[in-house]
């Protein structure tokens, strides 16, 4: 889990680094796309509902829900960041990735509550 959190925390900065590559280069497109679609949403889930993400990871519906929420939450956060920067008249590609990378890192590295952390994967019959 610690590797996931560290990886998420680093992902935004790697995407930011990729923007130094030429416009539309495949590595840059892939790095930014993967970051935007996966990382902010996953980090937000780790921060907001670690139990939903970890405890029931083995259940297909839970996996589906986690995947959906990762994507949709990531898109929602990216949309809100873009809108705020555009409304403020301060939008640039670098700034937007900087904000998202910081947000992702903070969400990924937020200290977990011990209750959630100690509870290993287990299945409740619900």
């Amino acid at each position: 889990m610690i590797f996931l959190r560290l990886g998420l925390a680093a992902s935004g900065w790697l995407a930011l680094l990729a923007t130094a590559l030429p416009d539309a280069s495949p590595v840059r497109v892939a790095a930014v796309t993967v970051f935007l679609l996966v990382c902010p949403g996953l980090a937000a889930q780790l921060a907001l509902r670690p139990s939903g993400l970890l405890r029931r990871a083995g259940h297909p519906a839970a996996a589906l829900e986690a995947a959906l929420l990762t994507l949709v939450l990531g898109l929602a956060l990216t949309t809100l960041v873009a809108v705020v920067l555009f409304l403020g008249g301060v939008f640039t590609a670098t700034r937007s990735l900087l904000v998202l990378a910081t947000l992702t890192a903070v969400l990924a590295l937020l200290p977990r509550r011990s209750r959630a952390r100690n509870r290993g994967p287990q299945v409740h019959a619900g």
Partner: protein
Amino acid sequence: MSGPHRPAHTSGGAPTGDTDTPNGAARPGDTTGTQAPETSGTRTRPDAPARTRSDVVRVWAARLVLPLSIALWLLSLRSVPIDRMRDLGLLQVMPPLFWVATALLTLGFCLTLSDRRTHGAWLTGYVLALIALIHATPTLLYPTLRYSWAWKHLAVIDAMIRHGGEVPNADKFSVYNDWPGFFQLHALFLRTTGLDSAVGYASWTPPIANVLLLAPLLLLYRSVTRDRRLVWGAVWIFYSCSWVGQDYFAPQSFAFLLFMTVVALLFRQLRSSALPRPDPRRRDGWPPGLLVAVVVIVAAIVVSHPLTPLMLISAMALLSLPRRSRRLALPVLIAAVVLTAAWDATVARSYISVNISNLIDSLTQPDKNVSSGLAALGDAAPGQILLSWVDRGLSAAVALLAIAGLLVRRWTRRTGLPLLAAAPLPLLAVNAYGGEMLFRAYLFSLPAAAFLVAALVLPPNPRRRVPYTLAVYPLLLVMIGALFFGYYGKEIVNQYTLKEVAAARYVIEHAPPGSTIVTLTADVPDLDLDYEKHRRVQLAYQDPDDQRLLVRDPLEGVTGFVYGATTERPAYVVLTRAQEKNLYLTGALPADVPGRLESALSGAEGFTRVYDNGDAVVYRYVTPPP
């Protein structure tokens, strides 16, 4: 499901001995159902009866039909004469192999559905193949992005990038300034990746948007029942009846995915949910972290689309009525109302204040909104009249079957789905939404309505499961057949050639700021680029007097709109293939107007033919000195 987590409706006054349940033995979420193993894919039970020879044949047939129908579909795309489309669009040019593939795929799905031990991956495969067959076919066949509105949205993204946000002088495009979420999300993506335009991936939006919708649909349906046949049957019916085409590159398709995610998360948290809940100790309401996530999603909806927040508010208001879902729906309702009010009072204030009088008018004439979505059939092409009736028939059939499902399968009344299906109805009374309200209401009702239809036509009958499942095959065929009318029937207008795009690019590159660009209809791909720099006139949508003048004397009809054009601010008249097809199809103007207009313009004083590539002609106009 076990222990203390009984479904809310079992403790909420359901009549004792009510055997009207989704699987014949267990209510949704009950612990004793025979369907419990069906929750996920294949689970061989020790006491399960052995498969008979016919079972084995059926299972293998289902496994063969999926790759076979995909192969036939791909083969059918090799030679489709799309330039021969007429008033029924793709419907009349798709080869027989395409229809064979569709019928086979539906049959294979029914066979798979009839076997309770087939792995869920096969059902997923069938649904994905259905989505590909319906929604990827135009993308694979057309040389460029389909649908004029998708092109328009590309232009909005481009303008927002150029202006760093709000686009000045946006005129009719100003609504996009007020709900910019979708456009600025793509602007962010384009700027950070360095891609020039979204046109490359926008073409694939319909299949991708539908694939993404599968996740919330499955979560929603699986929260209501553990009967796998019902879940996947409802999914299939949803995709077979979703003919309104709001899945293209647009804020609506984005906001609809977010809306469905919120709804699915809510149903998943219900105490009656047939799915195991993340925290079974929680009695009711949202886990705080998840509620924060939901509010973030609601905020993204509010900044992206004007209508979807209202649909969400309506849905949450109705779901707040029953006690079993109130503690979940109420917080989302409050968040949606507060965020929508705050957004409308600030960023979207200009649009709201201008349009509030229209809203009041529509409140006083609710019947106008209901009827505004129905096509005026006066001069439309014969095929379009048929198509319009098929669309209406499919929509009415879904509504009637859903109501019948609600009446006959009493257990569905306790699921919250009827409220979800009814949620768009109040909006019908208050918002015409440019004549589209009826279609949007259908879109938002369909996820719940499809389940009610599935509950009706796929009744629980463990003993006669196979014949009962196969009996719905004709119905599914009719549904998907009707869908093709609605979805493919107007493709003659939605498909563009590269020459039409080239003509639009020519105009945009050569027209100085302040120029007037005149077209007959909106069907010119990419002509909206730089929309804030040019004045646009679409002749077919002017006042009736102007239209009559155009029909009587095309030259005079056009000159009235461009008179006074100077060398610094000239006018361009753009006539293209798709505009001509639109007039033929819809009858907005007589079909001979484009030809007569072109004849009148060639040689007319002040008009110079500056571009002609076979699919498009462009005239430049400067008013001659007196």
